[in-house]
């Protein structure tokens, strides 16, 4: 597909971003990432052993991918910023997915703190991709602050409930200039396709792959679904209607037809 997504100057052929949490082991994670063709992989910095000793999750992430360390565990902008700095200092590049969650029950992001963290990290030269609760004004502020993409949730993280926030995400797709990556809540390949058909630039999937009975095969299913959804979006979905087209037109009298005149 000659339809690359460009984020911070990087060309991405695959529009499926994947995560590294919740897998039964690193080998399975590695195979799933490989099969997904994903080129952007997020990893929770809090789970990375920064001491440089022994087994490292990063050793099991294919080299071709762009690492997107995330700040999960942060409850404030300040904590997110400190985690991002640690990540950069440990040589994990300058991409960062900001995750600021001060609600441990639903794990919903704190947009206000996220905007603050976005501002601070953009100033420090990071490529910032904030994870957010879908909201137009918040997304605008993240964009103004210099976010490289905005990542609204489809449903609460890990809920596998699909794109419940679709109407708002549709508005973000229309109104925000930087790429929109639907992150969290996608439970099935069909839902990933749905997000892409709606016009999302990419989706991020973790739980649905990691907790599938066969994560590697499921990674492939998501890859195909994302491609299918993107192709459908690019080629103009036909109009849909709940009702059959009316058979006797009401304005037919306006069309001159030969004979009667």
């Amino acid at each position, binding site marked *: 597909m000659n339809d690359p997504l460009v984020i911070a100057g990087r060309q991405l052929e695959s529009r499926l971003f994947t995560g590294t949490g919740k897998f039964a082991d690193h080998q399975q994670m590695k195979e799933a990432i490989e099969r997904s063709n994903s080129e952007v992989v997020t990893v929770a910095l*809090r*789970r*990375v052993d920064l001491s440089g000793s022994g087994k490292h999750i990063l050793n099991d992430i294919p080299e071709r991918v762009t690492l997107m360390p995330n700040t999960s565990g942060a409850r404030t902008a300040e904590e997110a910023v400190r*985690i991002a700095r640690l990540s950069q200092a440990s040589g994990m590049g300058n991409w960062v997915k900001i995750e600021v969650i*001060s609600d441990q029950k639903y*794990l919903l992001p704190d947009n206000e703190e996220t905007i603050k963290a976005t501002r601070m990290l953009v100033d420090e030269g990071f490529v910032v991709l904030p994870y957010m609760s879908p909201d137009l004004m918040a997304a605008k502020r993240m964009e103004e602050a210099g976010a490289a993409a905005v990542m609204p949730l489809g449903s609460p993280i890990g809920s596998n409930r699909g794109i419940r926030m679709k109407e708002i995400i549709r508005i973000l797709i229309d109104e925000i200039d930087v790429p929109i990556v639907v992150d969290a809540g996608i439970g099935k390949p069909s839902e990933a396709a749905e997000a892409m058909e709606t016009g999302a630039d990419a989706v991020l999937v973790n739980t649905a792959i*990691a907790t599938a009975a066969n994560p590697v095969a499921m990674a492939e299913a998501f890859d195909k679904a994302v491609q299918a959804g993107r192709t459908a979006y690019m080629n103009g979905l036909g109009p849909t209607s709940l009702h059959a087209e009316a058979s006797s037109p009401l304005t037919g009298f306006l069309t001159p037809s030969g004979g009667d005149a």
Partner: protein
Amino acid sequence: MMSFYHVYEQVKNQPLSDMFHEVSGADVESVLQKDALTQDDYFKLLAPAAEPYLEAMAQKAHKLTLQHFGHTMQLFLPLYVSDYCVNTCKYCSFSVDNVFPRRRLTLEEVEEEAQAIAEMGIEQIIILSGESMKHSSVEYLTEIMTVLKRYFSSVGIEIQPMDQADYEALTASGIDNLTVYQETYDETIYRELHTKGPKRDYRYRLDTPERGCLAGMRAVNIGGLLGLDDWRRESFITGLHGQYLQNRYLDTEVGVSFPRIQPNAGSYEPNVHVTDKNMVQAMLALRLFLPRAGITLSTREKAALRDQLIPLGVTKMSAASSTKVGGYAQPEDTQSQFEISDERSVEEIRQLLFQKGYQPVMKDWQIMS
């Protein structure tokens, strides 16, 4: 200040133990159809009538845990730093009345213990001690944290209850989680069992988890010591306590443990015999009631049972634990708090987890202070 005590007051005079027997199998079946559980629903799952439905509860608990926590299991170890204690608890070996040579680790000894634990591959620990403000003081804990934070990514405490300002000082030193068990939520039994010392203050202990939340602890872990009173009633109130904290302190991870009384130097006989089946029911009901709560499983339980409990909702386990002060560097000395039942090494537990399809998580935070 708001307090869970007000919630407790509403249930304490209700004949809960009798009410459990009024729950029917049909009640339980209808609860199992629901996605989100009310307090009443939780109550029904703790009733004897729910016992025939344990398999259905287990399937649901397993699915929910997988969905929220994935195929992962946190591993941690307890680090006993002092066995000085000012309380008399009838069921505990550290009681002030039990005569044995007491000790508190010096800074050097703490470092030796830290090295021994870190060599096992463990990065998350909980500092434990007997309850003594003099020995397990804020100053002492802050001092040992300067050593511990070089070895570990997360350090918690399970010591005597403290004031909010103390907890604020401790979180500033890098301590990020607090465990405090109420032992029993029954105020009368509580006073019978805790005959001497500051621990007699039921209300102060009850409000301890809340003070931890207010002080910015990242995680707070609660529980009742099963065997002191009717476990169904205790589990119900523990669940209410967890829910109370979750609803008020959104940014705190609330966790629950189900410790059962183990043999100890005081030769205390439990009031209530809590069977494996009972403990499983308590754990499953809690998972269905609070799907996002952490559940910790310690080495108090036997290896064979622990293996079976792993997929039922547990999110955090300990391994190769020593309940003695200085027990990792010098295993042969001093009095243990209670006898552990699972002696397997960290490596054995890691292999077991992989075999069961779980990724052992050794690190889940980063001390930033």
